[in-house]
């Protein structure tokens, strides 16, 4: 007679769940963790006749702590929300806002005029205006035969 080891594991389900959880974390956040990203700011995007607009919510962030980079066709907004110098020694009773580094990237449309991108920071909203390239009219040209 063989002694069959019971294969029953009361934690099997939990273990499977934990494994899945780690997997999800690894696949989606690997880049963010590597860059130490604390949060992803809220964004609104819209298109007007002559330009595209991106609005990024960045309350409490200083203008000088925001970077906008363009690499090929990707526009990346990154920076850091810091705790104000005057509050560094305070006791925090409640912290609901996100502090730390943030980053968000956007693929630029083909007709974006990268050279003319403008950005404005007001009331905690970063607004980026991406003008559309003025299309050169392709009028059919008739060549006369001499």
């Amino acid at each position, binding site marked *: 007679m063989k002694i069959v080891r019971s294969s029953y594991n009361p934690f099997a389900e939990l273990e499977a769940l934990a494994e899945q959880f780690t997997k999800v974390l690894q696949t989606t956040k690997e880049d963010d963790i590597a860059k130490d990203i604390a949060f992803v700011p809220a964004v609104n995007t819209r298109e007007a006749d002559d330009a595209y607009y991106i609005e990024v919510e960045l309350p409490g962030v200083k203008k000088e702590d925001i970077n906008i980079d363009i690499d090929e066709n990707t526009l990346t907004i990154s920076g850091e929300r810091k705790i104000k110098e005057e509050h560094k020694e305070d*006791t925090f*009773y409640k912290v609901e806002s996100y502090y730390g580094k943030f980053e968000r990237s956007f693929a630029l449309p083909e007709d974006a005029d990268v050279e003319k991108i403008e950005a404005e920071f007001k009331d905690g909203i970063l607004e980026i205006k991406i003008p559309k390239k003025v299309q050169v009219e392709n009028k059919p040209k008739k060549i006369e035969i001499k």
Partner: protein
Amino acid sequence: MANITKELKNVEQKIEHGIVEGVNKAKEVLANVARHIPLANIMHNKKKDTYTIEIDLPGVKKEDIQVTIEGNYLIVSAERKMKQELKEDDYYLLESKYGKYYRAFYLSDDIDRDSIDAKYEDGRLIITFEKVASKKRKDIAVK
């Protein structure tokens, strides 16, 4: 048979219409109710004996913020309005919350209500209070 399907379609349309109407009415009613709670940070500086409440209100105009003290509560209400002629439909992606914001904070007895100071800076409302004078930290020189 054809009649039954027709009738069913009719009923379906009526129900759909009713739902849409109901949702629209609910939206109308809710438009006047504060729906959003802004994020807040509360801190206390032990050296200066000041309390600070920072409230995230990005994209809100200074004139659309109201700060009131009512009894033992500090009440902050605000409205985030859409820019000029823009509508929600004009956006491809809209993650911000527009509309009314409301939040109340309980003020304990050792907070001096008259010392309140409020300013709006970089999308944040910053409210500071001082401790009641008699309860302030005092350094006493030893003779």
